[in-house]
């Protein structure tokens, strides 16, 4: 029967390597999310949302203000200018499409409505 071997004298470099190996192996296991992320997302500060809300409100306000200014200061001159512009555009068109001026006007108005709706949507989304 063999006698047990006496413990080898402690080698500092081996000890160090063993300790480092143990420390690496001791990395914490994966912690299950268990709703943690949802709690974080629910408590995100409103600061960014407020800033985004302010931006959207400024954009929408600027758009409406610009429209208002154009109507107030442009007056009938603006309307006449737009009508003239539409006529020119209709005349310039090589295609003899009837009512092209009206189509341009309707298209322009649709663009404004869409822009205002988009601004309103962005504003509402950030509330």
């Amino acid at each position, binding site marked *: 029967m063999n006698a047990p071997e006496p413990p080898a004298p402690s080698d500092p470099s081996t000890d160090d390597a063993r300790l480092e190996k143990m*420390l*690496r192996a*001791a990395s*914490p296991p994966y*912690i299950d999310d268990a709703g*943690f992320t949802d709690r*974080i997302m629910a408590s995100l500060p409103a600061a*960014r949302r407020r800033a985004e809300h302010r931006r959207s409100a400024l954009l929408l306000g600027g758009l409406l203000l610009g429209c208002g200014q154009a109507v107030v200061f442009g007056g009938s001159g603006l309307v006449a200018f737009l009508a003239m512009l539409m006529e020119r555009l209709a005349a310039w068109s090589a295609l003899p499409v009837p009512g092209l001026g009206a189509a341009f006007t309707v298209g322009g108005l649709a663009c404004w409505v869409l822009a205002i709706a988009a601004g309103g949507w962005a504003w509402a989304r950030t509330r």
Partner: protein
Amino acid sequence: MLAHDDRHAFGELVRQHQSAVRGFLRRLTGGRHALADDLAQETFLEAYRCLARFHGESAFGTWLHGIAYNRFRSTRRRQRETVEWTDEIEISNATPGCETTVPAAPATVDLRQDLAAALARLSADEQSAIHLCYAEGLTHEEAAGVLGCPLGTVKTHVLRAKDKLRGYLSAWAPA
């Protein structure tokens, strides 16, 4: 990725890093899970507020660990008068993330518990340095960035911690 305040992307980042950050804080708080999770929550909220300050000089996870460590330090400073932070850690709680269900051999369990207990006896700075350099695999330079201290200080913490651990674990002999 987050330039346009993409909350969904931030949620993904939280999901991706929550385990590491919570594990780090659980270790620092000596296994106080509730406190660690509160600190982790504050960490992510601060990260969200300060996203503009993250320019990608380090990995996002490293940056998060830095915030977490600062949160831990300021909380410890605030609570030091009312809460004793040292030498009251239960060994069973000293290993963060008790959710693990991987069975281990008795000797491994013993060693893990002894190591956890030994780690818990280190100072917070030493624990942080050891955790970051070994468990998280950061370089000394990255760990210095997280801990906000000079490189030499991190190396000293690591060396000192290892010396202490060798002493604490010298009695351990596998069966």
